[in-house]
């Protein structure tokens, strides 16, 4: 009986974290896209310059 209670609790906490994990993955994607494609620092711009142009990101 006690065993079952624990497993129910585990699966419900997994449901919550599934959505949270998907959101975290998308946040990592957004951060990466910003640094490579949009960050205004000269160093980031110069390193990724040709890639920014080729993905038609706004540049310069």
């Amino acid at each position, binding site marked *: 009986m006690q065993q079952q209670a624990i497993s129910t609790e585990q*699966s419900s906490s*997994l*449901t919550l*974290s*599934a*959505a949270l*994990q*998907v*959101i*975290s*993955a*998308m946040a*990592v*994607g*957004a951060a*990466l*896209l910003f*640094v*490579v*494609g*949009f960050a*205004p620092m*000269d*160093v980031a*711009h*110069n*390193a*990724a*310059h*040709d*890639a*920014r*142009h*080729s*993905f*038609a*990101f*706004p*540049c*310069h």
Partner: protein
Amino acid sequence: MAFRNILLSAIVVGIFSGLLYGLFQHFQISPIIYAAEAYEVEDIVATPAAHGHSGTAGHHEHNEEAWGPKDGAERIGYTIGADIAIGIAYALFMISLMALHNLKANKPKLTMMTGAAWGIASMIIFFAAPAMFGLHPEVPGTEAATLENRQGWWSLCVALTAAGIAVLYYAPVKLKLSGPILAAIPHMMGAPMPEHHGFANTDPQAIEALSQLTTQFYLFTAVGMGIFFVLLGALSGLAVQRFVKLNA
């Protein structure tokens, strides 16, 4: 661990599609960028005090002090690295949303084929809507509006096109029409445009050459983006089908 599986899948998918696009870019797109840079004129506002070594032909820098990769292998390496990083970022979005779709939506589960269709939708979201209908792909040396305004409009356009396509696909029939309306909003606002169109270089020969380069650039980025996004979508669909399982 959904997060770990999404991240690992996205890294693999991003490496494959970014590397392929990097190679395509190296042979088809970068030569156009290099050719356009030969016509670049010194930006007087950005570099008020031009130094002696500023005339390095074909090398692009905003700021004389800032680091930039050397032309040749180093620049090519950074470009392909950046392509892969952008590939991983897009794959993270794609695989996350596909996993959510499989978990929540009352629609067929993703496969490689439906993944490729998602790839076409992503090309519309990230390339066609912002670039073909708004801020056209530009070679270096093209006059354009303030960067921050264009980046803001780009982000808005991508977000609203994505929302519009999602509404069109998932919403009940009565509400589907609001999808295209959402996607049309940024275009009714209009993309930020420069006061006068043209190139920083005013020499007639340079303008002629840059116009031709722009046409080529437009064509090859469109072809390359098509290949990139269809591959990214198909691989993401496969990854979601095989490796990413969310617990309902």
